[in-house]
């Protein structure tokens, strides 16, 4: 029950977020709050702006206008030390993006040690604990090129967790995987959700959205078109676009 203690603390607040790439208006005014412990799952057709929205949350994309607050701090303010903010927000990418030049262990401990958040021994110990949690302890000395996609993505999750983030962002974490490897990654994510982590997940895995999400959002044309609990979202979709979308993907 400890997970719900801070249940109504707003970790992320997004106000009227816009993002333009030259003439392409990708986000057209997104407003949203993420509360602590929530698992927000974002679905929508490709080109709907869902990945851009996620990448704006840790400013990998710079918003054109609007505000993003994280932990009570306005992070869209140019004076904010964004590197510091990012240490509290883990991100997992579609293409894993493990550092190819480093062993798995070094991938995991690079950021904590170089940012002087942990000593080397402490970081290694933590890395081994996390690796054991995802069942990959024996891969500590391997290199990314020796791992399967599913293993890489589990390592990528561990790498983010090693920073003790407050929030985890997932950008289509299973889209680049062979079908038989999707399950192992989703299992890790489910376990993470159960541990109380605040998560924002962009995905096409409707089963995951239904099972793990506390809220499901439907994005299209750069706005959040519909937001609901998973049950209502899938059983009783309101807007026409979502009904069309669900009829295609389910």
């Amino acid at each position, binding site marked *: 029950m400890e997970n719900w203690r801070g249940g109504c603390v707003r970790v992320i607040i997004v106000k009227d977020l816009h993002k333009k790439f030259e003439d392409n208006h990708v986000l057209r005014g997104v407003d949203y709050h993420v509360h602590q412990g929530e698992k927000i799952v974002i679905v929508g057709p490709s080109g709907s702006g869902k990945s851009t929205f996620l990448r704006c949350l840790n400013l*990998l994309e710079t918003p054109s206008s609007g505000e993003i607050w994280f932990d009570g701090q306005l992070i869209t303010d140019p004076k904010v030390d964004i*590197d510091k903010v990012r240490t509290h927000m*883990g991100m997992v990418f579609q293409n894993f993006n*493990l550092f190819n030049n480093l062993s798995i262990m070094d991938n995991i401990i*690079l*950021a904590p040690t*170089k940012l002087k958040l942990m000593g080397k021994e402490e970081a290694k110990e933590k890395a081994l604990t996390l690796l054991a949690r995802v069942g990959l302890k024996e891969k500590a000395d391997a290199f990314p090129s020796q791992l399967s996609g599913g293993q890489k993505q589990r390592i990528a999750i561990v*790498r983010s967790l090693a920073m003790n983030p407050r929030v985890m962002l997932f950008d289509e974490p299973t889209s680049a995987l062979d079908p038989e490897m999707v399950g192992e990654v989703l299992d890790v994510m489910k376990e993470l959700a159960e541990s109380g982590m605040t998560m924002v997940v962009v995905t096409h895995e409707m089963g995951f959205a239904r099972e793990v999400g506390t809220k499901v959002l439907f994005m299209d044309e750069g706005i959040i078109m519909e937001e609901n609990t998973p049950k209502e979202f899938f059983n009783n979709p309101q807007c026409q676009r979502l009904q069309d979308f669900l009829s295609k993907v389910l």
Partner: protein
Amino acid sequence: MQAWFEKVGKMFEMAFISGDRWKLYLDGLGVTLQIAFFAAILGMVIGTVVALMKLSTRKNGKKTVWSYLAGAYIDIIRGTPSVLQLLIMWFIILKSCKNGILVAVLSFGINSGAYVAEIVRAGILAVDKGQTEAGRSLGLSKAKTMIYIVIPQAVKNVLPPIGNEFIVLLKETAIAGYVSLTDLTRAANQISSRTYEAFMPLIGAAVIYFVIIKILTILLGKLERRLRKSDNR
């Protein structure tokens, strides 16, 4: 047949043995290697710095002043003949400097830097953007991401073209004679004008260049294979 051998032997003796002429080639080779070695180091340093300058962006993604400066430097150097650059350095910019080798090292180094800059820039750009994004998303700064993640991977990309650049540079030093340095090419040329016999000295110098570059190629190949090996672990 015997007469032919005698003739060749005589030519060889004239070109390399008599008057201890082989020492002249050796001295020339020394000058060539000195210039090439230090110019290569200077070129690497300049090239890396200029590449990073050219890649630098402001917060809004636009180019920096440094980027434009780097672009101008590359344009000017690549847009003018290296002989002319050497002459300008010798007769105008460093007119008061009497150390020819120093002038040549500077001139060739600055010249090579422009080419190395483009090689390094391409090598950095060839590293997947996701690597940078992953580094930044973990809270690493731009500089730390560059140093620990991007540059180590870029080194592998740039090694073959950098090796090529070293080879080009080594041969390019053959124009050092323009600023009254006696490098290998000029030494050979001088000997041929003294003996009125061009074949042996010029072919001899060509063979020396070839052997040096062959050795360099083998060494670079070894280094490249070693770096690649870590890829397939």
